[in-house]
Every structure is written in structure tokens, then in C-alpha cells.
């Protein structure tokens, strides 16, 4: 009997449609975010994260419609990230039914945004997304990247996470840019260092290739939640499979 570790499927949404080839058995429209969300809910997903990868800002409103539709029929926490620039963007997403928003680039560009948003909407709905890469020089450490991993900031990932938690971030979504897409597993050292450094929950992300990796994120990385995209999308594994694997390794999960 205790707080469980969360399993969070992540869906990339481009102009209102799920991309990266989500494939479910028996699903009629794999590109429909609502259908995908419902399916993950049935499988026992603890939360859902939508990442808006829409490139042009004039089509961003489609994400509002997606959130509206999903929040009307799927009753688990929803996080939305991608392209959030202002308190007004956050307000609109929360009003549409998002429970949390995740902010990366905008937090770096405007260091007050997290503080202002947390004061206005509460820390519980402000997630700091940290995209981190190992430094290539001899210095030991991880650097924060923005703009989808394209721009180095010079900031130390651990110090940055602590700084933003101090001003009000309620959770950290931590992605290893070195591991993202490799299927080699989370960067466990990065995960452990951030998790030990901050007092708020940490979601490990980037690199999951098998169910064992999810368990490692918790047992070795110290993560409070694990996020994955492709291993769930292609029907290789369900969220329920992931939880059974974690439970077999002694991790408390909601089954």
C-alpha cells in the first residue's frame, strides 16, 4: 500500500493528429488523439502526455481542440507540452482541460515564466521539461538544450532543475537527448542526479527500448514516473505489460 510509480505514454501531435505511427490492433483511426488516449486509458496508463510538434504557430489552436475532446472523455491527468510561450498559452490549455503544462524553451528564454505561472495556476500544473545532453568536453555534467534539442544553453541541467523547482516548478520531465530515439534505455546517471537533487517528482524520458528499461528508470534512476512513446505506439507492448514487468521487480504500480 503506497504511492505507485507512474507509467505515462507520450503522444506526438502535429496539427491535431497523432504522428509517429501509432498502431493499435482494431483501432479505426490511429491518427485520432482521442482514440489513442482512450486506448491507453483502458490499458491502465496513469497519465497522458501530449507533445505538440506543430511547426506553424497559426495552427496551434488545433491542440486546444484536441485537449477539449480528450478531457471530455478520458479522466486521467493530461499534460501538454510543446510551443508554450506565455501565461496566456498556459491559461488556454488549462481551461481546455489540461491538468499540467510542460515548459522548456520558454522557461529558458523567460526565467520568470515558471514563477509567474506557478503563482497564478499552482505549482502542481507547471512541469519543467529539461532536455539534457552529456557535455562533450572533460567536464562532468549535463547541459540543457532548447528548441527540440537543437540549441545549447550552457546551463547545467541539475542546477537548472533545482533553480526552477525553487521558483515553483512542481515536477520535472527529464529527457536525455543522447538517448532519445536510441532504444538503449534511460540515461540512468542523469536521472539519478536530478532526482536526488530536487524535492519534486521526476519523470524519466528518452531511450526506452524495452520494458526492463522502464523498471531501471525507477530502481536505478530514482524516477517517480517513466514516460515512453514508441514501445507503446507500435503495439509491441501495452501499458499493462509495462506495469506487470515493473511489479515483478518489486515496484509499486497501479494494476
Amino acid at each position: 500500500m503506497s504511492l505507485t510509480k507512474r507509467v505515462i505514454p507520450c503522444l506526438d501531435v502535429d496539427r491535431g493528429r497523432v504522428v509517429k505511427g501509432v498502431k493499435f490492433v482494431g483501432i479505426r483511426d490511429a491518427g485520432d488523439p482521442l482514440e489513442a488516449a482512450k486506448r491507453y486509458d483502458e490499458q491502465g496508463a496513469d497519465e497522458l502526455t501530449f507533445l505538440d510538434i506543430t511547426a506553424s504557430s497559426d495552427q496551434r489552436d488545433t491542440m486546444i481542440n484536441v485537449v477539449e475532446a480528450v478531457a471530455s472523455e478520458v479522466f486521467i491527468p493530461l499534460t501538454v507540452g510543446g510551443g508554450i510561450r506565455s501565461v496566456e498559452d498556459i491559461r488556454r490549455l488549462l481551461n481546455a482541460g489540461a491538468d499540467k503544462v510542460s515548459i522548456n524553451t520558454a522557461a529558458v528564454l523567460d526565467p520568470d515564466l515558471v514563477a509567474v505561472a506557478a503563482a497564478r495556476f499552482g505549482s502542481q500544473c507547471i512541469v519543467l521539461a529539461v532536455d539534457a545532453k552529456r557535455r562533450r568536453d572533460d567536464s562532468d555534467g549535463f547541459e540543457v538544450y532548447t528548441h527540440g534539442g537543437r540549441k545549447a544553453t550552457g546551463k547545467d541541467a541539475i542546477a537548472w532543475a533545482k533553480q526552477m523547482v525553487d521558483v515553483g516548478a512542481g515536477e520535472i520531465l527529464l529527457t536525455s537527448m543522447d538517448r532519445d530515439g536510441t532504444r538503449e534505455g534511460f540515461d540512468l546517471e542523469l536521472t539519478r542526479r536530478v532526482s536526488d537533487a530536487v524535492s519534486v517528482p521526476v519523470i524519466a524520458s528518452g531511450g526506452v527500448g524495452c520494458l526492463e528499461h522502464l523498471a531501471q528508470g525507477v530502481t536505478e534512476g530514482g524516477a517517480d514516473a517513466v514516460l515512453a512513446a514508441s514501445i507503446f505506439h507500435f503495439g509491441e507492448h501495452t501499458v499493462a505489460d509495462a506495469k506487470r514487468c515493473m511489479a515483478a521487480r518489486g515496484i509499486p504500480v497501479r494494476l
Partner: protein
Amino acid sequence: MERVVVIDYRMGNLRSVAKALAHVAAERADILVSSDARAIGDADRVVFPGQGAIRDCMLELENHGLVEAVKEALASKPFLGICLGQQALMETSEEHIGTVGLGIFPGTVKRFSNDVRDESTGERLKVPHMGWNNVRFAKKHPLWRGIADGEYFYFVHSYYVAPQDDEVTVGRTRYAVEFSSAIAKRNLFAVQFHPEKSARAGLALLKNFLQWDGDACVMRDA
């Protein structure tokens, strides 16, 4: 048709609560999000959600001229408090010394200590307490109908209620300490977790609330 009012006093996102209620009510009830004292007075049942600090909650209730309407609803009709809407029913809070809540339940609101470790793993426990945790029933209640003892509900909070009289506790949850995750008396039921975000179990609780006549032992037939 029955009218259910979700009290809007600018403390957190109420849309999720309204959407979940609308989902379980289907066509049988009007779900209204309102900050109008008269609408609260006319409602058949009232839901009092919220996230944030009690001091702000009380200030906002006063700013919106809602204190009397909320107190009247608390005394007279099926009333569901959620999260901050549970905490605000207590007398006092550790959050800000001297903060006084609605005082329906004698007792206080406490904060999780920042330096507590999990008994089995030794990992430091994070605050807020965020995620799915068990609710063990301390008592039978019509709102638990069809829900398993020990069921998981979704939590996100740093404070919890500590009622003076443990008789009011109907559900308990453990996070370093054991706390009252659900309290009830007469026509009042209040929970720390978010039924509107707790998948099937949460929807079952909301549906039970819509069918509850406000008597702690009786449930109207659906």
C-alpha cells in the same frame, strides 16, 4: 432536472470536475460552473473543488461574496469537497499561522515533511504527494458503493487534513504518514484526491455522489 453547481471561486481548474460530472450525469442533471451565490442557493447539490492555499481560498470566497452561500450549502444539501475544497472545511491550517478555514470539521491542515524516507526503499519521498495511491475504507459510506476497499485514486497535494475527531474519517491513505484522505459527516463528503482524474473509480464516486440524498447511510436508487 437536478441542478449541480461546481463552485467557481478562481482557485484552480474546475473544468475537469465539471466534465467528469457531466460524463457520469449523462442527461439526468445540469452541471453548472458558477460563482453566483444565488445559483449555489438554488442548487440541489454542490461540489467545492480547488487547488492552492487555504488563505487564498478564503479570500476568494469573500471577494466573490460566497462565504454565506457555501456555509448554507454545507448545512443543507449533498456537498462534495475536493482537494483544497476538503482542506478548507477544517478549522485551522499550518500553512499560514492564524489562517482560519470554514471550521466545519474541528482539526487542522498539515504539511508533509520535506525530509521523509520511504520505509522499504529508503528513497526520499517527494512533496507534493503526486500520483496514484490507495484509499483504505475506514467506514462504510454510500459514496463508496461499487468501489473496492484499497482502490487507487489520483492525488496531488502537499497538505493534508488532520481532523480532531477520527470518527469523521471514512478513508485513509499512507504517504510517510497515514492521513484522512476522505472525511464525512451528515450531508458532507470531502476527499483529498481527485475523483475527476481517477479513471473508473473516480467516476464511480462522482456517480454515487449524484445519486446520494445526503444521508450518511442512505442511497437513493439510481
